[in-house]
């Protein structure tokens, strides 16, 4: 392409800098870039003149790998993208396959409530990482320790439900798969919710004058910018746009639970902080409702869709029942086989809209799978809003956009 050669020159210009400006390499091993992000920043004194993000250090070719894994095998790749909220990523992937197969409406209520509860638990876990590290970037150490203490409790709940803390591979196409939880788990979630409090972190940061000085009127994103840059998640809700896929296009059990979408209009780092903090209170509300609903469901309520071509049969039936054995064999050998076609499905992940676009050719492996990663799209705004700010504020801006490099690079 002819365009490329000119661009390489532009890059050289940036690295030389113009005049007396200084070029600063921030990352890829800078602690406040939250992973391996490299920012090439042109500085005039302490003011940022240009900012160029360089990413890809964690590129593993997930989209290519998904093309050679069957639909079930691909689950394990999804929680390695946004590793702060693994179960939520698993669910986006599974629900996209369910949409492709046209079985979204058949998913049993029990699975829908459990998915909602687990998605909100992972939202809490992800927001706790953000809250801790965001505070840490700006100099509030205690919030980090308290925040990760709460997250640890959530990871224990994940471990109890599916055996893993981070790379959960939770649930399967068609429902919960083998991961249905018992009453003991619900008790533990309830105990966690009863002991859960954000108030001490809230008291540390929200009214903290130093924190407010560092965040208010910093990294302003206007409504027009938020729309044009395709921002989603808490970032867009901090700029006065009440867009939340959980409300706008409800999936799982979000149409059955009661919650509010916090929106702030200022568009600065502080507004995004308030959005996420209030979201965490709402998540707690949603989890409580889901646990109650799960308790009210009869014990023998199905947790998987009743389709032998999607869900493996009860393993006890396989050696004695010819039909069950055939179904089991077909599923193990060929996996789930959606009919040929294409579809896109996105959910409200902690970082924004995580979408999966599938093209199926009717076999057990997707012909093409594209991941619409919220961190990747949200990251693009950093190049624009950090221009004109101080170098110390870039740290606050990166924290407030809340990216995970595993998901940016895929």
């Amino acid at each position, binding site marked *: 392409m002819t365009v490329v050669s000119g661009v390489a020159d532009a890059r050289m210009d940036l690295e030389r800098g113009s005049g007396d400006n200084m070029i600063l390499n921030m990352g890829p091993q800078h602690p406040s870039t939250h992973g391996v992000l490299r920012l090439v920043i042109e500085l005039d004194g302490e003011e940022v003149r240009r900012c160029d993000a360089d990413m890809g250090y964690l590129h593993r070719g997930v989209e*290519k790998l998904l093309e050679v894994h069957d639909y079930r095998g691909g689950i394990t790749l999804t929680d390695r993208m946004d590793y702060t909220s693994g179960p939520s990523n698993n669910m986006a992937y599974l629900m996209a396959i369910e949409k492709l197969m046209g079985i979204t409406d058949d998913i049993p209520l029990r699975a829908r409530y459990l998915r909602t509860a687990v998605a909100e638990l992972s939202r809490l876990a992800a927001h706790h990482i953000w809250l801790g590290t965001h505070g840490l970037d700006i100099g509030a150490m205690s919030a980090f320790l308290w925040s990760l203490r709460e997250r640890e409790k959530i990871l224990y709940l994940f471990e109890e439900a599916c055996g893993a803390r981070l790379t959960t591979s939770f649930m399967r196409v068609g429902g919960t798969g083998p991961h249905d939880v018992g009453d003991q788990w619900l008790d533990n979630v309830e105990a966690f919710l009863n002991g859960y409090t954000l108030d001490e972190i809230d008291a540390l940061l929200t009214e903290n004058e130093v924190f407010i000085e560092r965040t208010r009127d910093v990294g302003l994103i206007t409504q027009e910018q938020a729309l*044009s840059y395709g921002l989603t998640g808490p970032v867009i809700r901090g700029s*006065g746009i009440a867009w939340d896929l959980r409300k706008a296009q409800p999936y799982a059990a979000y149409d059955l639970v009661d919650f509010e979408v916090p929106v702030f209009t200022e568009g600065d780092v502080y507004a995004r902080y308030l959005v996420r903090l209030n979201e965490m209170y709402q998540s707690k509300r949603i989890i409580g409702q889901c646990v109650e609903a799960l308790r009210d469901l009869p014990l023998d309520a199905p947790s998987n869709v009743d389709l032998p071509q999607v869900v493996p049969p009860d393993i006890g039936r396989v050696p004695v029942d010819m039909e069950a054995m055939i179904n089991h064999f077909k599923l193990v050998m060929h996996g789930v086989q959606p009919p040929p*076609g294409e579809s*896109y499905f996105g959910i409200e992940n902690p970082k924004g809209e995580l979408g999966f676009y599938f093209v199926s050719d009717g076999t057990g492996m997707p012909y*093409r799978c594209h991941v619409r990663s919220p961190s*990747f799209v949200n990251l693009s705004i950093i190049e624009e809003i950090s221009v004109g700010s101080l170098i110390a504020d870039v740290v606050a801006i990166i924290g407030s956009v809340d990216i995970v490099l595993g998901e940016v690079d895929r």
Partner: protein
Amino acid sequence: MLVPAASPTLTAEAILDRIQQHAGAAYLNGRVDHGDPVAEVSPEALPALFPALRDDQELKLEQLVDVTAVHWPLDVGREFQVLWQFRSLTNNLFARVTARLSDGGSVASATATYASALYLEREVFDLFGIGFTGHPNLKRILLPEGYEGHPLRKEYPVEGPTFPEDAHRNDLVGQLDPDDFWADVDKANGA
């Protein structure tokens, strides 16, 4: 404050009608797939279509959510299917526009209308080798500069181009003579 509509203000068929009006003769076909409107247009219409879709008050597709592509190497002459996915937050709508082009071809960039295309088009360029004319900064984004090949093309091997062919061969295991090995170790230690 922008408060989105509680439910979509237009049906999928109505969205396709609006897209057809804007694209005119360039509108090739439209269908409702898994509930989503999908319109195929010819690539020439795209530069005018992007601002038209955004500014149409009934559609108001304010966000370009996603740009990606699919490689169909057997479909000679139109190997690439590029797709743009839009959302209207105000009207709570979703739409997908696709265009087919040949290997080595270029399509118009959406960056003049949607800033989200700045990164998304670079990703498609990086992984597929599709050009976007009018993009201000079209260069690789995920892979390092100077990387050869475009991994999401179907002919690109999953293991990567430099993967040694004999890496899987079992007969190489045990070829090393342990006596030679320890002799080398002793030599290295000055014995």
